[in-house]
């Protein structure tokens, strides 16, 4: 019995000594906490990005299809001089921007309703309604749209039912625009909601007391405070569209390739160096975008 108590006491004093030691040396605690995540991320993730970037400066031997480890800018030269790649890049960025704007427009009223009008019980329900599609398979949601937009699909069925002709949207850039806007919409709703929810009620009251109409309050009070949330959401809608290759392959028509499709093609050929070179384009674009987003306060938004 006494032995047990002694053992317990010594264990406790050891623990006390340990926590005291950690308390005195906060850097040690910090190092212990950060070592694993930073190591894993720095080695695996940054290492991976670095190796991708490095291989962009290599080439493949045209006969053996083996990667030749010789430094060259040829891949970038090809990209620069071939107009096809410019067109593809333009299409990718353009559609990513269009999708982002569309999602912001769709998300704002929904987020506003959730944040400021809906009673708590509805709000919880709306949350699940917005979140759930996000957790159902992304590919399947694209397939759903494929069947909706198809010639014998639900959209044309509805249109024909009310006496309108077929929409003819299957395999077009418009279809891509709809599908992208659809799949990324929840990513926009949540940060916008978070931004709107944090606006104190008395800001709106103050605006009203000072004689502002609803539209003026929206423009001068609500929108500026919502911008960081919108920008935060746009990081997702923009970057997810920028890197996608499945939607263009499934619902896009001829001549609707994205950067991602070319990259995937080249990986399959396999021409990893060229794929890597083209893949640096969205990375650079995203880098610039993130810098702008940071200036607009997106990183403090939520």
């Amino acid at each position, binding site marked *: 019995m006494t032995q047990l108590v002694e053992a317990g006491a010594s264990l406790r004093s050891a*623990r006390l000594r*340990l*926590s005291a030691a950690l*308390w005195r040396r906060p850097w040690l605690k*910090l190092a212990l*906490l950060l070592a*694993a*995540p*930073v190591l894993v*991320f*720095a080695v695996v*993730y*940054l290492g*991976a990005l670095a*190796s*991708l970037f490095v*291989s962009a400066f290599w080439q493949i031997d045209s006969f053996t299809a083996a990667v030749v480890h010789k430094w060259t800018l040829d891949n970038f030269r090809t990209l620069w001089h071939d107009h096809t790649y410019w067109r593809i890049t333009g299409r990718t960025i353009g559609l990513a921007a269009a999708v982002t704007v569309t999602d912001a427009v769709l998300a704002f*009223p*929904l987020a506003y*309703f959730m*944040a400021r*009008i809906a009673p*708590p019980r509805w709000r*919880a329900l709306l*949350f*699940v*309604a*917005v*979140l*759930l599609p*996000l*957790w*159902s398979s*992304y590919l399947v949601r694209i*397939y759903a*749209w494929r*069947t*909706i937009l*198809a010639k014998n699909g*639900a959209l044309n069925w509805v249109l024909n039912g009310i006496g309108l002709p077929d929409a003819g949207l299957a395999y077009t850039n418009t279809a891509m625009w709809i599908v992208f806007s*659809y799949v990324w919409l*929840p990513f926009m709703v*949540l940060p916008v*909601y978070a931004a709107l929810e944090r606006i104190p*009620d008395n800001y709106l009251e103050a605006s*009203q007391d000072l004689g502002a109409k609803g539209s003026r309050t929206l423009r001068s009070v609500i929108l500026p405070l919502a911008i960081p949330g919108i920008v935060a*959401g746009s990081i*997702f809608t923009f970057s997810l569209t920028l*890197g*996608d*290759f499945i939607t263009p392959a499934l619902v896009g028509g001829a001549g609707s390739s994205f950067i991602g499709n070319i*990259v995937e093609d080249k990986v399959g050929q396999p021409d990893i160096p060229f794929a*890597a070179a083209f*893949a640096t384009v*969205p990375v650079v674009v*995203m880098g610039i975008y993130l810098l702008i*987003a940071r200036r607009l306060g*997106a*990183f403090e*938004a939520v």
Partner: protein
Amino acid sequence: METRGTRIGLGVATVAVIAFLWLPLLLIMAYAFNSSTIQSWPISGFTLHWFREAWHDPEVRRSVELSLKVGLAATAIALVLGTAAAAAIYRFRFFGREAVSFLLLLPIALPGIITGMALNSFFNFGGVQLSMWTIVAGHATFCVVIVYNNVLARLRRSSPSLIEASMDLGADGWQTFRWVIWPALSTALVAGGLLAFALSFDEVIVTTFTAGAQTTLPIVNAIVFVVILATVIPVTIAQRLTGDTGVLRRGAAASKAAAAATGGGAV
């Protein structure tokens, strides 16, 4: 504050957007009962055939099994790394703090194909054979953020004086952790873990589907039906757990969890 007209307008817009989000899902769920293999609307007849087929399909079973394994492993890694990182970011101000939080965010901010390709060429580079564990490594990179966001949001809402009080009362580090920090964090961990798992689980199914989706589409519809119903559970639980803290208004807490769920939390 809003006028009646505005409220009604916003309500109508909300209903429209929710319908936009849900109609395709309901439609694809309806296709699961389609007796024809041709995907036209309206469906030609009702059958449960595809559910039976999916249940007995060995490939489906393998894919579900792999998804479960990868999801569990990635979630476990994410829980450890995400919690450690969140604790460090919360407790300390140090050189490179911003860089670390930015680094954790990168995998979801950068296009997925880049992450995939980068990891692929990294594994090739290091001579690592592609296997279940390389998938786990890939998934863990984006699952960490979800746990990290959830835990950080919870830490920010819990008062640091609780920890000081516990120490003043003579508790050692372990006791403080066990009786003060853990009760405050546990639901955030469960929520983060559930969401990370749901994300990873879904992703593997996507990967498997991309391989042979053309031929197995009716079966896919049946699986989708089940997966959609199955994801209701973790998402609803996660929402409840993070929403029910009583620290802030319910909705506010839930929004943080939801934002964190999608990675919006740190952005």
